[in-house]
């Protein structure tokens, strides 16, 4: 039984995990960097272990430092959150070797889904449709593959992910030098020059499915739509995916469960798909073998605590939820509040909050670690908090979100609050079902 949980993360997700663990009667030890010593999660945790100085490479990304701190704290289990080491197989292996439970999937799943090309192969084996395209062992093969696929194509790094290392090529005459550049960048960014080729789908929606597995059974908790993105970074997410025929949504959910079963998946995971906005044909993109930033919208429509489910499965229990027991109702929308200056091309804005007033009330949930006196250090990402609203219908959720954003005031650094105020007023957003080109068409405030 997990009694002492080490949280190897920071910010809002660290606080999120701490809260559920506390509710379950589990002692929490936060593995914090020096820069996060006085943060809200550090105050909330039962114990704090300093894993290193501010810079991530010396703290949150250091397998040795984190494992050593967890061992010293006599932790039974480590929750890796998202980002950092959450999908790092070497970290999961090191935890196992130290006799500490890794709250996450098995090594086999991490390995299968970490390499995007391998994930494509596994997806095909599991019977999932994938974007037309395929691997390209060398430049010759890449050229051939692109010609088979048809233009435009997307060149993607095999060891990439998180929306990084992708190149669009519209014309055959640009292909050769684009392949050279893509391979060089892949080598520089990920240490692996391998790329693969996919057809570029112009009018696409990013729809993902939340799955839970215990190694034998797997269920889904419905879809999320994350099409509102800037440079492949999600800004707004909602559940369920709106404006889709029910049978198509059901088919995507079934495909996700098939993949989870095929992997004998243990824990919480998300299967990501690209959906053609006109035909609703869907294609498997990748699977994220961790809890995701946007998990709250699924929690809000299902009433399931996903962190609790992660801990139960990590404890060796079978899923107590069956598919029939999952009955989503209503609609939920989340906006990510980042410490960035929209007016200055999203320049990051570290600093200290002099004011952190978040909305509250019926149908409103705020997942944040940011309070007045809190710091946004320059070492990590810019996520300050998430505003999540729920409504009986999508229209009610949109209205509630619009009102709630007017009651969000953070001072001391720039935030993207105004950007979200513009998004909720955009008629395309109000109508719903936007594709990934939404952001380009957004009027500047």
């Amino acid at each position: 039984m997990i009694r002492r949980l080490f949280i190897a993360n920071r910010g809002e997700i660290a606080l999120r995990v701490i809260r559920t663990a506390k509710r379950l009667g589990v002692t929490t030890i936060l593995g914090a960097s020096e820069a996060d010593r006085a943060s809200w999660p550090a105050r909330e945790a039962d114990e704090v272990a300093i894993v290193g100085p501010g810079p991530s490479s010396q703290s949150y990304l250091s397998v040795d430092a984190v494992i050593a701190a967890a061992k010293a704290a006599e932790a039974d289990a480590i929750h890796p959150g998202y980002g950092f080491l959450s999908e790092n197989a070497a970290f999961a292996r090191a935890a196992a070797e130290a006799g500490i439970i890794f709250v996450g999937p098995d090594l086999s799943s991490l390995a299968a889904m970490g390499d995007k090309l391998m994930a494509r192969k596994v997806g095909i084996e599991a019977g999932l449709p994938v974007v037309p395209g395929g691997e390209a062992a060398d430049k010759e093969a890449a050229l051939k593959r692109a010609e088979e696929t048809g233009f435009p194509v997307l060149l993607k790094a095999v060891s990439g992910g998180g929306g990084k290392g992708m190149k669009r090529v519209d014309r055959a005459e640009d292909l050769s030098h684009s392949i050279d550049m893509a391979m060089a960048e892949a080598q520089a960014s990920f240490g692996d020059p391998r790329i693969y080729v996919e057809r570029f789908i112009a009018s696409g929606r990013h729809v993902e499915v939340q799955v839970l597995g215990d190694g034998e059974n797997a269920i889904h908790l419905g879809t999320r739509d994350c099409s509102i993105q800037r440079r492949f970074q999600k800004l707004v997410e909602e559940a369920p995916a709106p404006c889709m025929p029910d049978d198509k949504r059901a088919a995507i959910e079934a495909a996700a469960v098939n993949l989870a079963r095929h992997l004998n998946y243990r824990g919480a995971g998300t299967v990501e798909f690209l959906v053609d906005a006109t035909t609703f044909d869907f294609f498997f993109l990748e699977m994220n073998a961790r809890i995701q930033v946007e998990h709250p919208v699924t929690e809000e429509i299902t009433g399931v605590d996903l962190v609790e489910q992660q801990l139960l499965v990590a404890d060796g229990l079978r899923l107590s939820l069956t598919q029939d027991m999952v009955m989503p109702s209503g609609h939920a929308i989340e906006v990510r509040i980042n410490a960035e200056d929209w007016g200055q091309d999203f320049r990051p804005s570290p600093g200290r909050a002099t004011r952190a007033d978040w909305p509250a009330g019926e149908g409103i949930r705020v997942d944040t670690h940011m309070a007045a006196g809190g710091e946004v250090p320059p070492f990590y990402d810019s996520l300050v908090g998430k505003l999540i609203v729920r409504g009986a219908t999508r229209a009610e959720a949109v209205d509630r979100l619009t009102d709630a954003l007017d009651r969000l005031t953070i001072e001391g650094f720039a935030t993207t609050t105004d950007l979200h105020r513009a998004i909720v007023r955009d008629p395309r957003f109000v109508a719903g079902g936007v594709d990934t080109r939404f952001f380009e068409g957004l009027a500047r405030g």
Partner: protein
Amino acid sequence: MTTDLPLTPEDVNEITSILDGSSYDRLDIRTSRLRLRVQRNGEGWTQEWSLEDEAGAATAVVAAAAVVIVEELPEGVTGIPAPLPGTFYRAPQPGAPPFVEIGDVVGPETVVGIVETMKLMNPVHAGCSGRVIAICVENATMVDGAAVLMHVEPA
């Protein structure tokens, strides 16, 4: 560690539900870790969280790690400030030659360095014309937003 009253999001929801039906507009709670004010705001509510005690103090840890350059600029010399806090780099990548050296002539758009913050590389533009006569911050040093990185003398 003494057990303290935890303040969860569920608690905030309960508080707003209770206050909704009342004539109260505001509730202040203070625990040993946090302060919370739940305040009526139009048709809805705000939750105002603070890590500070009433005197307004909070541990500012990041500032201690930053290099704060406080100096008088010599006459006629312009300073190039860091555009934002972060880690200052003199070259585009490790091992590459620096953007500028002492003696180089710069114009307003000349890139003289990079400040890396929150995983993004932000170019530092000279913002003035002249000759670089001093480089005040070493490579790979943390700077705060007010730091002067270089001195430029009008050519």
